Each structure stands twice: as structure tokens, then as C-alpha cells.
């Protein structure tokens, strides 16, 4: 069974830049929000440290509060459901890249950057990710020959 990081936070509505900042950080990590309240990430040394940093940044904001837990699920089957949500989220991004790669004259430079950002959220080694990686290399080779 996997271990998960659970994160809840509260930041005042104004100034809105702070709320956007926190939200963007969580999205960039590929965190998933459950029932509009609890943010979840698979536990890795990296996610653990990043959320600790985010918690400390929120603490520095006036009126900012947060809590961070490490947790295990104890109801059978929920683990794989949650894992699937992470895979689906990153696969959506990979599918988008793959479809753009199939068009004429795809922007390989922009798409390789998009791939890098997606792969930073790929916690369970998606098969589609490998396909995007190989397609990018193959298309580059074709473009060079």
C-alpha cells in the first residue's frame, strides 16, 4: 500500500495573487484535490519536502494556515483508484502532446518543454510518457535528416 501526503490550507481571498500562487504550485506538482478540500500527492522525498516548503510559505502569509499529513489508506481498493486518478491526469497531458505531434510540422521545441512539465507530475511511470519521449526523439531525427 502506498503512502500519501494530505494537505489542507487556507489563504485569505485578498490579495488574490497569493491564492493563485499556492494553487499554481500545487498544480505544477500534479497534486489532486479531493472533494474541493484535501490536496493529495504520492509520498516521495521530493513531494514531502516541496509541501513542507509550501506550508512554510503559507505560514508567512498573513492569515495563512495549513496542515500536512503522511497517511495510509485502510479501506481496500481505494489506493488503486487514487493511483489511477494520478495516471489519468498525466495521461491527459501526454495524449494532448501525442495528438499535436501527429499534426503537420509540430512545434517540437514547445512540445518537448510541455513533455518535461508533464513528466514532473508522472508519479507512476505512465506508458504513454515513454511513447511521447520516443516520438519526440524520432520526429527530431526525421527533421534533421
Amino acid at each position: 500500500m502506498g503512502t500519501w501526503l494530505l494537505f489542507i490550507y487556507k489563504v485569505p481571498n485578498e490579495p488574490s495573487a497569493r491564492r493563485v500562487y499556492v494553487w499554481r504550485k500545487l498544480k505544477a506538482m500534479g497534486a489532486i484535490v479531493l472533494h474541493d478540500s484535501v490536496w493529495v500527492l504520492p509520498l516521495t522525498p521530493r513531494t514531502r519536502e516541496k509541501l513542507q516548503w509550501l506550508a512554510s510559505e503559507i505560514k508567512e502569509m498573513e492569515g495563512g494556515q495549513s496542515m500536512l499529513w503522511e497517511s495510509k489508506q485502510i479501506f481496500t481498493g481505494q489506493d488503486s483508484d487514487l493511483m489511477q486518478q494520478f495516471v489519468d491526469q498525466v495521461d491527459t497531458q501526454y495524449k494532448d502532446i501525442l495528438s499535436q505531434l501527429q499534426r503537420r510540422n509540430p512545434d517540437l521545441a514547445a512540445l518537448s518543454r510541455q513533455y518535461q512539465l508533464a513528466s514532473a507530475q508522472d508519479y507512476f511511470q505512465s506508458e504513454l510518457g515513454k511513447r511521447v519521449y520516443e516520438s519526440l526523439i524520432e520526429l527530431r531525427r526525421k527533421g534533421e535528416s
Partner: protein
Amino acid sequence: MKWVTWEHIGVDRMGSAWLIQRFIDKQAEFIFIAHGSTLLPKGCEPFDIPGVRYSHHGGHCTFYVLLKEHKISDRVLERIAQIVDEADEIHKVAVEPAAPGLDLICRGLRQISRDDFEALERSRFIFEALYAELSKDEA
């Protein structure tokens, strides 16, 4: 002075320790405490621990904050700060291609080292090399 940070050091802690010893406190000694620990030993200056003065502020990593707090103006160090920022955090707009590579190398260096002291010692070499190479661009 004695400087303290969390164990299992990575890019920002290695870089910051190098910066401290090379440009801020030549006699610096380093101590490592358990990852996640908030009990700081007395008489030590903590760095790269959430909530302390020398840590992440305003979307920047500790290396950058140390540089600013000590008012060090050195264009090469500013470049390294930018690299460490991008290595330590995901940024949609990235301008330093060395960043993800440096992050990986620092992680690997910790893995193949006996402890944090050995990792720190070895990492100096990397940051010295980076400093030397980037200095050529500024010359």
C-alpha cells in the same frame, strides 16, 4: 560559526553550504539534523529549513536568499542562484538548461556518499566547477 540544516542534502543545501563557506563564513562548520526536525541545536545558524531566515522566501531558494541577505553582488553567483532556483522548484518558464541536470547530479552524489559530510565535501567540487565555467561568460 556552526551552520545547521536537514540531512540528506540536495542541490540547494549543497549549493548554500558552498556559498556560505566560500563567500560568507570561511570558518563555517556544518551540522545535520533529521529531515523534518524543528528542534534546532543552540548557537547554530539554521539554513534551508522551513520557517528560518535563510530559507525559501518570495518564490526563491535558499541560495538566492543567502546572496541577497548578505548583499553579495557577483553576477556569476546570481547565475548560479537562478540555476539552483530552477533545479529546486518546477518553473513553467525555465531559462537555465543546466538546472535539472544539476539537481540529478546532486541527488546522485548524496546516494553514493557515505554521509552528508562526505556529500558536502564532494559537492564543493561541482559548484567550484560551475563557478569557474560561468565566470568565462562574464569575463
